């Protein structure tokens, strides 16, 4: 089966640090919020770990951002400039996951180096990476040192407002972190996409339509 190089090393490093980090953030987040219901570690340990891993993730975010800003691979995130086409493609992808996949229909999206995400995936990741993740980092940093950022927190409506925003985004990530690996298991084999995220190479069932891998 032909292979194409779709996950460059910086992206793979960023991805796995992000994956480990977000799982840790969610686990410690649950521990912080549900003291008494969950007793994996002390509240203080959970807070300290949450803070440290948070800063690692912020630094890691810039690995992702700088890589794509200074690489031609940024096209993977480019949406279709025609909203109708973008919507049609997203709908087709949803139809595939919701119905076609059970009938054994082929995935309507064909992976290429410059278009590795399907329309739905690309839009979702853009919302996550450019809106939700920065917002979560921002609210997290404010909560990390409430006193230092008290002026900004007051402008936003107070620490309760900031925490509510943080928890709402956390709620989204809780669902995402479970669904994301499941969707990743819907490749031509259950493990194909996972292997690709380690090796960088995706196996494609037909000839790649885009330019050859950059190496």
């Amino acid at each position, binding site marked *: 089966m032909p292979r194409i190089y779709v996950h460059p090393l910086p992206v793979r490093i960023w991805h796995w640090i992000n994956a480990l980090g977000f799982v840790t953030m969610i686990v410690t987040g649950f521990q*912080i*919020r*549900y*003291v*008494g219901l969950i007793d994996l570690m*002390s*509240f*203080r340990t959970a*807070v*300290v770990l949450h*803070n440290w891993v948070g800063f690692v993730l912020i630094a890691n975010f810039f690995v992702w951002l700088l890589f794509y800003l200074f690489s031609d691979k940024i096209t993977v995130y480019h949406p279709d400039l025609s909203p109708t086409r973008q919507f049609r493609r997203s709908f087709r992808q949803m139809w595939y*996951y919701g119905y076609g*996949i*059970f*009938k*054994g*229909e082929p995935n309507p999206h064909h992976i290429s180096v410059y278009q590795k995400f399907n329309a739905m995936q690309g839009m979702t990741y853009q919302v996550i990476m450019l809106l939700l993740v920065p917002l979560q980092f921002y609210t997290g940093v404010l*909560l*990390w*040192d*409430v*006193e*230092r950022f*008290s002026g900004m927190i*007051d402008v936003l*409506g*107070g*620490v*309760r*407002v900031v*925490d*509510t925003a943080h*928890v*709402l985004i*956390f*709620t*989204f990530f*809780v*669902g*995402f*972190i*479970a*669904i994301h690996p*499941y969707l990743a298991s*819907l490749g*031509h*084999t*259950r493990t194909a996409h996972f292997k690709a995220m380690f090796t960088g190479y995706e196996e494609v069932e037909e000839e790649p339509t885009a330019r050859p891998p950059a190496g």
Partner: protein
Amino acid sequence: MTGAKFHADLMNAARLVLMAVAVLAVSSLTARAASSVLSKPSQQCLGCHSAKGLEKKLANGETLSLHVEGSEFARSVHNMIGCAVCHADTTLENHPPVKTKIAGAREYSLTLAKVCHTCHADKLKLYEGSIHAALVREGNPIAPICTDCHSPHAVLPQAAYDEASGAPCSRCHNPVFDAYAGSVHGEARKKGRMDAPVCSSCHNTHDPRAGGNEDALRNACLGCHPRALPAHREWLPNAERHLHTVSCAACHAPGAKRKIDLRLYDSAAQKRIAEKEGVPQFELRARAIDTEGKGLDVNELQKLLGEINRDGTEGRAILRGRLEVDSGIEAHRLAGKTRAVGQCEGCHRAGSAPFQKVTISIAGVDGRPVRYDARQEVLNSANSVESIGGFYVIGGTRIGLLDVLVVLSLLIGVGVPVVHLALGWLSRKYAKRIGGREDS
């Protein structure tokens, strides 16, 4: 007595005092040895006033003791100035008997306290900013004035004052003093640690401020414990915020009952909203809104904030929470740091003890907080996000609605793959029959 006459008498007396001071200064050791000897005029006064049981009936029916213990007065610092300086309105022409009617003991003390101010103007300045003076201005009949703390005929030099005895504060604040005496501070003082604080160390001698002034109290603690902040930073996340929103006693008085006080602040001025002088409305207003009399619920709290906002504060009325001990007495039962509350879980667990009692407060005219009860639910309601945006304890006051969303998200996160897998398994035979792939 007219003001002019009082002033003239006072000036005469002051001249006498100056002369006496000058004589005392030049006669050095002789003068010191004689300092406990009563002057001739004082001896003349004490000729009558040393008699025990000498008293006077006042207009309101009270009895004013006119007895002065000669030996005590001789030892007092006021011996130096003699009787006439303070009692300048009493002259040989009008005494005895004093013809001026005295309305009551309190009124007499208030009049004579003004005499203290002529020599102790610096202390008066401090006193006027105190909670004691504020209470006097409010007309509180037992609020202390000079003579309540300093027995005028037995004022000893400052060095002779036993600070650890609690006097004179304990006369009115005895339960507080008892709590202090059993505290780490009181015990240290008993063991001779002269650096251990007494009442005046935290509350100032002449200008004690209203309790509940968080900055003043925190600064009093930090004054002797300057390493408190760095020491807390070593183990406590968000140490600065904790030290601002949790009173020191809330953790360092381990057995104390704690509560949340939601304080009304002006968002623009960043100051506590204060009751308007002469028209105290906060409590009346809160009582009127609290229709069931069980404390303000979420909607009633919003209504109260709305009414305060309509009064025209500079900015918006906002609430900032503070974790504090339930009473001033408990605030003084401070223990050593090894017994301090160090378990985060004590507050960061939902339904923790401190969140069972909630009050809303405004700064009273005299600086003391005026409080009204609120229901515990206001801390956890989604509708409180706006009204008490300034207070949130992670885990401890978490919003119930968000918990529902978290559970929903978990169910979706787990449910979608499970349902999808199940559908995939069910459709496998169908896919095979129509020639599609099985590993979908």
